[in-house]
């Protein structure tokens, strides 16, 4: 299953055309001149220094914010409001403390159509699906625990299950592994890799971790800050399926180095002013 984006043909799934966004008329553009296309099933990662507009990009992509200039198209349609099909997960798991893990994962099915109208009737089937998903991320036996009874890494897994349970075509991850220790993080990389390989939804991953971006993504975008622009688009041609071992190969380390150098240059050229 080779997944270099150039191999995917047809209409782009996400299409940004010279998009800019200023949070308020007086402040400058948070991001500007963003033009890119993402194909269905592609795994893209955004890296860049803090404050460069990665989270802003996510909000534009999902329709939570409207661009002040340019247009965003998703699945051929201009984005005018929140998309309704997206799964999202953040650095903090944002699980609801009054719901058990299972019911947290079920939440999207209570909201998204067509599951919503079938929820009452097919609750047992849905719960079974959520259980299978939880088992896949290693949370078997924790279905009826409350979020505070789970460790940080377990909460994050549950949060990713919640983002996936309605089988979204687009998964948005904003530094989902940033708060975790290195071992858990690598474990969750593999978890995400496997689920993605199986279901092939489109993933937009925001991260500070260049190894994470390189290991998981088909395409890595490097962003610059003030204003946020796309500095470089980098295809990662490493063969799939990728094993964690690959992160110790020379090719991989080279790629990470090159990305690092790109970001290092941003820093250097920007600090003097």
């Amino acid at each position, binding site marked *: 299953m080779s997944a270099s984006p150039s191999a995917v043909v047809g209409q782009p799934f996400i299409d940004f055309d010279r998009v800019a966004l200023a949070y308020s008329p007086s402040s400058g553009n948070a991001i500007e001149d963003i033009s890119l296309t993402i194909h269905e099933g592609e795994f893209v990662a955004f890296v860049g220094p803090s404050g460069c507009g990665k989270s802003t990009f996510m*909000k534009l992509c*999902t*329709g*939570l914010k409207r661009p002040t200039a340019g247009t965003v198209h998703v699945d051929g349609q201009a984005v005018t409001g*929140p*998309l*309704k*099909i*997206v*799964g*999202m*997960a*953040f650095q*903090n798991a*944002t699980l*609801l*403390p*009054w719901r058990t893990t299972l019911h947290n994962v079920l*939440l*999207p099915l*209570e*909201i*998204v*159509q067509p599951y919503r109208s079938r929820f009452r009737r097919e609750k047992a089937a849905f719960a079974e699906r959520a259980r299978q998903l939880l088992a896949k991320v290693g949370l078997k036996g924790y279905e009826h625990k*409350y*979020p*505070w*009874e789970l460790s940080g890494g377990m909460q994050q897994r549950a949060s990713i299950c*919640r*983002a996936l349970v*309605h089988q979204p075509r687009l998964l*948005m991850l904003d530094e989902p592994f940033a708060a975790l220790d290195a071992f858990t993080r690598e474990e969750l990389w593999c978890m995400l890799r496997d689920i993605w390989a199986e279901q092939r939804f489109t993933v937009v991953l925001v991260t500070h971790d260049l190894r994470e971006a390189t290991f998981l993504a088909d395409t890595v975008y490097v962003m610059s800050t003030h204003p946020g622009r796309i500095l470089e688009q980098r295809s990662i041609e490493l063969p799939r399926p990728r094993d964690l071992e690959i992160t110790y190969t020379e090719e991989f380390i080279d790629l990470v180095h090159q990305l690092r150098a790109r970001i290092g240059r941003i820093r250097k050229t920007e600090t003097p002013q």
Partner: protein
Amino acid sequence: MKPTALERWAPWLAVVVLLVVWEAICRGFQVSEFIFPAPTAIMQAMIQFAGPIRMHAWQTFWTTMIGFGLGVLVGLLLGLIIGSSRFMYRACYPLLVGFNSIPKVAFVPVLVVWFGIGTVPAILTAFLICFFPIVVNVATGLATLEPEMEDVLRVLGAKRLDVLLKVGLPRSLPYFFASLKVAITLAFVGTVVSETVASNLGIGYLMMSAGASMRMPLVFAGLIVISVMAMAMYELFAWLERRMTGWAHRGQQGSA
């Protein structure tokens, strides 16, 4: 950690000590019953006037409960409106704060002009004094919703009502129940204040008239009856809070 047996009995012990000291002072210094009655004298008054006390206490109780019920309804509604819209929050909050800073006793004469002497002003005073903490708490619970949580729901196509029902309301429940404890005690204050000046029923009135005829033990009996009622209701709502929103407290323990 479980409280030890001694800790559990500590409040009762404190009450007993207080009563003994009180009694001793009254007897030792031969304080006149018309100034500061001893516990035994109060006890006597309670037994002697058990019938009237029960009647007036019942009056105060249901008056307070109606006022409190109104306060919960209005407080919840206002809290929902103010808490779920930034605009309404901005618009109404200063107004509410201003309103709340008026001493509610000042309303009683106005209420008497409008509704005459009796139960209605008492109900309304209880209501006016108790709805504010409910509004503030419910509004705070809703307004402090994490933006990420809202984003997660909105990109699923959730309407505002969905966000409110699935997240906002359950999240503000602990705030709501915490405010009920405060509100119920305030409601008792409102009722009694109004009864003392504008009623011929209720514990407030009983104390007022007993005071006028220099029956101090009966006045104190009234005080004790009110505080027992208010405390019992407080405990009831504290228990309800623990039952309904245990997750909030356990959650804090877990993350602390």
